[in-house]
């Protein structure tokens, strides 16, 4: 049997996922990291993006996180997410709308807009859409 690592994905409002995995991918501050069992202790901020959990049955589960912290210990990965969604729960229409709105605001350059906030909203929407796209592509590749 392959070596496994325990994964917990929790947000303040609920525990979303808990189980074992052979590998975990997370969008860390310095780029995406892949975590294998017996990884050295590691802790990082997360940027908006996708967390992928590869299960021992060779399946893959995808989650979208809007940010947070990932903590790695040799046998446990903990994702402390700000908000987290299973990939297929992402509302594509809403994400597209959010992206459009944010881009419009950035283009207009009005004075009464909080640009830092709009920018982070844009990043989140784009990350959601990318997560969806990745999931679709993988499904296509498999089928």
């Amino acid at each position, binding site marked *: 049997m392959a070596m496994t690592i325990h994964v917990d994905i929790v947000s303040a*409002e609920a525990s979303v996922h808990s189980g074992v995995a052979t590998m975990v991918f997370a969008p860390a501050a310095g780029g995406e990291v892949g975590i294998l069992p017996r990884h050295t202790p590691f*802790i990082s901020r997360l940027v908006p993006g996708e967390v992928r959990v590869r299960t021992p049955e060779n399946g893959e589960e995808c989650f979208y996180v809007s940010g947070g*912290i990932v903590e790695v210990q040799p046998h446990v990965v903990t994702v402390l997410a700000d908000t987290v969604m299973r990939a297929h729960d992402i509302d594509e229409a809403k994400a597209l709308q959010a992206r459009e709105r944010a881009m419009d605001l950035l283009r207009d350059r009005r004075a009464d807009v909080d640009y830092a906030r709009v920018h982070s909203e844009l990043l989140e929407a784009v990350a959601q859409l990318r997560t969806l796209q990745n999931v679709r592509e993988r499904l296509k590749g498999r089928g």
Partner: protein
Amino acid sequence: MAGSKEIRDKIKSIKNTRKITKAMQMVAASKMRRFQDRMIAARPYAERIRRVIGHLAHANPEYRHPYLVTRTETKNVGYVVITSDRGLCGGLNSNLLRTLTLKMREAQRDGMGVQFCSVGTKGSVFLKRSGAKIVSSINHLGDTPRIVDLIGVVRVMLDAYSTGAIDRLYLVYNRFVNTMTQTPTIEQILPLPPDAGKGVSKHPWDYLYEPDAKAVLDDLLVRFTESLVYQGVVENMASEMASRMVAMKAASDNAATIIDELQLAYNKARQAAVTQELSEIVAGAAAV
């Protein structure tokens, strides 16, 4: 039949009231179960953050984050006051606010300034009336409080702590013990109580950090305090529902007792009226 109609009307009106209180009791019972689930769902997050902070504090004894350091002098204190938005929940809010008032007087006697952050209508109204200094407030969180809604109001307090406008921050809420018991609780959240770092092994080791230890610890501590406040809000909501359920059950029971009493009075009045009528008829017949 003097009085019997009035009594009948009264019985009817109390029966209507009982219907309402009964309905409120049922609604509160089902909502309470939901909030209890939410309370339990919120626990793993806080627990895990607590553990990570413990590790970090242990691995980096040289970096002391201001949230972890107790200041020698306390000039100003802040309270995050969590109350319900609606009434009709027994003595829940008044007990909490009484406890708070006592604590506040104590602080003022010691010459400390007091600032408030209010979550929930009842607390806001009370604090405004008593002329307290409210620096931020949020009302009408609804049935699904989200941590995003709380971040703003909590941030005001965290900033006040960082800039030194307050030296201590307390969380005031009703702790949900069980359906019958909810205790008004005042908890210190800043500086974090030292037991936040408990349960760490003696074996020395450290993380790899990205970007660096300080940034990660800062992020974690802010999130931890936010999750504490969120936990307080959810517990307070579960308490509110439990307390309302009990209060409405008592009200329904009282209504039932009153109805019984009135029914008895009504029967007596009716009986008296019938007797009187009969005796009048008999007397009339005798006179003829």
